[in-house]
């Protein structure tokens, strides 16, 4: 969906739905997910429709993902860190862990 035209900066390895991918320090999780070609960041609780980041600035809440075991986080507002584990969120989040 997106590609990096420049990869200047420190690289980190993150894990998206079990797959290791490279990201660049300073990027948001949402950006890294788009660059990894992962498509949707979540499915909706109402109809199960796939959704992807719409605003990239913390307004639309379409990029809610499970990041390091905490669900419902705005992936566009969280920067990548080494070893970060990211999961797509299916439907509503559940209390106490990944859905």
């Amino acid at each position, binding site marked *: 969906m997106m590609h990096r035209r*420049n990869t200047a900066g420190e690289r980190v390895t993150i894990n998206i739905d079990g797959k290791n991918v490279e990201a660049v320090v300073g990027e948001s999780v949402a950006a890294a997910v788009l660059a990894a070609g992962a498509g949707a960041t979540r499915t909706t609780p109402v109809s199960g429709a796939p959704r*992807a980041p719409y605003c990239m600035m913390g*307004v639309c809440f379409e990029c809610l993902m499970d990041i390091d075991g905490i669900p419902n986080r*705005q992936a566009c507002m969280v920067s990548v860190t080494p070893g970060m584990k990211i999961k797509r969120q299916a439907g509503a989040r559940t209390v106490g862990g990944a859905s």
Partner: protein
Amino acid sequence: MSEQACDVVVIGAGPAGMRAAVTAANEGLSVTLIDEQTEAGGQIYRAVARVARTRPADLTLLGPEYAAGGDIVLELDAADITVLHGHTVWQISQDGTVWCSDGTKAKSITARFVIMASGAQERPVPVPGWTLPGVMTAGAAQILLKSAAMVPDGPVALYGSGPLLLLVADQLLSAGADIRVVAETTTFKDYLNAAPHLLGALPASKYLKKGIALRRHLKAAGVPIIKAPNGVSIEGTERATGLRIIGKHGQTFEAETILLQQGVVPNTQASWQLRLDHAWHAAQHYWYPTTDRFGATSLANVFIAGDGAGIFGAEAAAAAGALAGLGVAHAAGNISAAARDQKALPFIALHKKAAAIRPLLDHLFPPPAHILVPDDATIICRCEEITAGQVRDAAKLGAPGPNQLKAFLRAGMGPCQGRMCGLSVVEIMARAHGKSPAEIGAYRIRPPLKPLSLAELAAMDDDTPTP
């Protein structure tokens, strides 16, 4: 008494917030600046310091207006200010207590004055298919370009109106994107309505020249700029595959990435939560909290600077930040009214010059009717998947305004808390009831402004007052 206290809390590190914080600090006030992002700059100067450090060639691509933001970031770095990056404000109390969290632990800061500089968001653009993956705002694509040097793969189509539409199209083109079309909603009637404001815009003629240059550059590169006065629909099932122009000669353009833009509107979540006085902007169809030239609001200890008080752009926002800093310095007793007014003169002039373009833009690029009041089948509340038709039906059944609508449909009660559907709901209900938006009113915004976990709340220090 909370653990942390200061004279001024500034919320938001865009041009208005940075300049407000620096100005207040220079007048001898203790300042804490809270920002949701991990780097200063807001959306307009997003990541500007990092871009200058790690990929300086991109400053050329993003333009001198963007690069200029680096100077304000340097001013902020040099000032004696406590900056809390990566902190999300989730409540502001009328007494000046600001509640925030870094994602692990919530805390409160008590301030004599609060300057809100939470800026703008892009107007949501509800068209058929706009919830499909591959559809985002033009600003979102620009944020990806600024903050991550990212460019869309495959064919790209843009739809909407206004300066940001052409700017993003041009920047993405220069960055190597395959731009298939720019579809504009601006009509001949809009040009007629805007014409009387042309003379007044001359002090800001550099913006006009830039707009003309962008259009010329796109055309020279072979990008079709076409008219789409009746709107568009987005094709695709699991993700966007094309942009269809609605109309007699409507064509479909293949596109994997579709970027929407219909102007920007003030981010009013916090100003509504504080129950400040608001007014309705008739030409641009948005709410704004009413302020004086120093950003003073209907609450004596709360000031607002920048686009959060009405859309005037980045240069005007920086000037408004300085004015709010001076306004607070006077209200705090640090400077006399005469000193405030004297120091304000250059910033009032700057603001006036930068804002001179707005009446022209406001009338040239109004959000079109098919966006304000979409067809029945179009989703307007993305979180709860509520269509415009459902809102109309609820109005017919007796829901008088946005807050009653929540009980009928749950519109505005999903994670975004009405940020995406709020303006659409106001317009649709106003038309359904034959009332003005001001009579219909807005969603009542309550804390938390952004969701936070019980764990973050539980981690608060014991001496923190209860919210």
